[in-house]
């Protein structure tokens, strides 16, 4: 994870998780355009999850797919509870998540990086958000499937949490799991998210130290 790698936005972050590579940029808070979108009591959070045409095995058309539209929504709803949007009425905060290379777990890595970029943009937050997918492969629950594992897996359960507040902000399941597996999976996810959170902290710390050095 690296924070502040783009120079012309309010905040940015880059994440590599295995072969998955994602860059996130945040613009704002800035004046809402078009104006009628502005909310009187808080900032409007907008996200875009998008995959580059070259990010996948076969070229992906750059037009947004139904999958990308859905992920855009769930990612926005994963980040929103962490932000004090009421601090910036009538503005928009835009979060652009670009998947440069996809090797599964892109929505989770996108959320983790987006939260870092929002932190660098100075948006006040209750907690960072980090995310990881719980997978089931060969009857075994594991964390963070890659694409090959995902293709042969029986289930994929992405989870995002605010680690200090111990709150789930994203939860999806694709595949078949029992109640016990879901509960065990959540505990497993919590552990993984704890580790990601430490990496997030380090990435933020190093950008702050670098900025002070300059």
């Amino acid at each position, binding site marked *: 994870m690296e924070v502040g790698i783009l120079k012309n936005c309010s905040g940015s972050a880059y994440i590599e998780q295995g072969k998955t590579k994602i860059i996130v940029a945040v613009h704002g808070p800035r004046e809402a355009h078009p104006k009628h979108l502005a909310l009187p009591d808080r900032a409007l959070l907008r996200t875009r999850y998008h995959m580059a045409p070259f990010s996948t095995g076969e070229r992906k058309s750059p037009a947004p797919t139904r999958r990308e539209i*859905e992920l855009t929504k769930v990612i926005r709803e994963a980040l929103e*509870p962490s932000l004090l949007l009421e601090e910036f009425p009538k503005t928009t905060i835009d979060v652009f998540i670009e998947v440069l290379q996809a090797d599964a777990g892109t929505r989770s890595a996108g959320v983790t990086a987006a939260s870092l970029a929002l932190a660098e943009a100075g948006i006040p937050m209750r907690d960072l958000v980090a995310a990881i997918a719980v997978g089931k492969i060969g009857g075994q629950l594991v964390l963070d499937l890659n694409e090959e594992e995902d293709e042969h897996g029986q289930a994929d359960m992405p989870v995002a949490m605010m680690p200090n507040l111990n709150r789930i*902000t994203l939860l999806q399941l694709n595949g078949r799991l029992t109640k016990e597996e879901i509960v065990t999976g959540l505990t497993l996810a919590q552990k993984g998210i704890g580790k990601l959170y430490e990496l997030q902290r380090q990435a933020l710390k190093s950008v702050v130290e670098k900025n002070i050095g300059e």
Partner: protein
Amino acid sequence: MDSVTLLRQKDIISVLSTGTRVDGRKLDQYRKANIRVGVYEKADGSAIVSLGNTVVVAGIKLETGEPFPDTPNEGVLAVNLELLPHASPSFEPGPPDENAIEMARIVDRGIRESKSIKSSELCIVPGKKVWIVYVDISAMDHDGNIVDAAGLAAMAALLSCKIPDVRVEGEEFLRLDTKKPIPLVEKPVPVTVAKIGDYLVVDPTLAEEEVSDVKVTVTTLESGVVSSIQKSGSGTLTEDDVRKIYDLALEKGRELRSLLSAGGE
């Protein structure tokens, strides 16, 4: 939430704190569900589902086409959902928005991941021709929880759907006049639980959805296995919430499933 919605939320929570809901239901009580199948002759399967004042229709059209290269011997399921302008003054005509796409994908995943359709039986000529099952859902009247109604309508329509028998000769095939039901081994049913303040309510009405912090849709099978989960909305959940929501979804799912098996009413 704007201040009017916050006031309404306060109202609804104060009623919930007495163990009942604005419409008189208990917190874990589903609305009266009604299912009618075979309502459109030109569709290969169809159903109308109502949950209280929420009404959704589903129609199935079967087409033949090429399978996906990675699953050459399996048929294809495609679920689409339209929020008709009839359903609510807030729905505009036009291509499906993110809400419609999300709900269609929840229904799609719930059915697909349950492996309830034996998709190998939808294969006509391996690698060349398979049945494509288009499930098109239209929300006609919106009083909350369209997604559950859509999932129920999709299942009811699938249960009523008949596939033409075919005679295969080499790579060619002929549609025969006889038909057989779609091979279904499970009945996945989505159940949505809304969290309002600290209260969990099943099958939220529109008024409840508007003041809810978060909704979770859980698709269960009779065995208790879950085939899809989706958290929707900008609130948060605890692990305990997830457990309670699962239990509610399984219990209510079983009620709805028995309704599906009984063919409605």
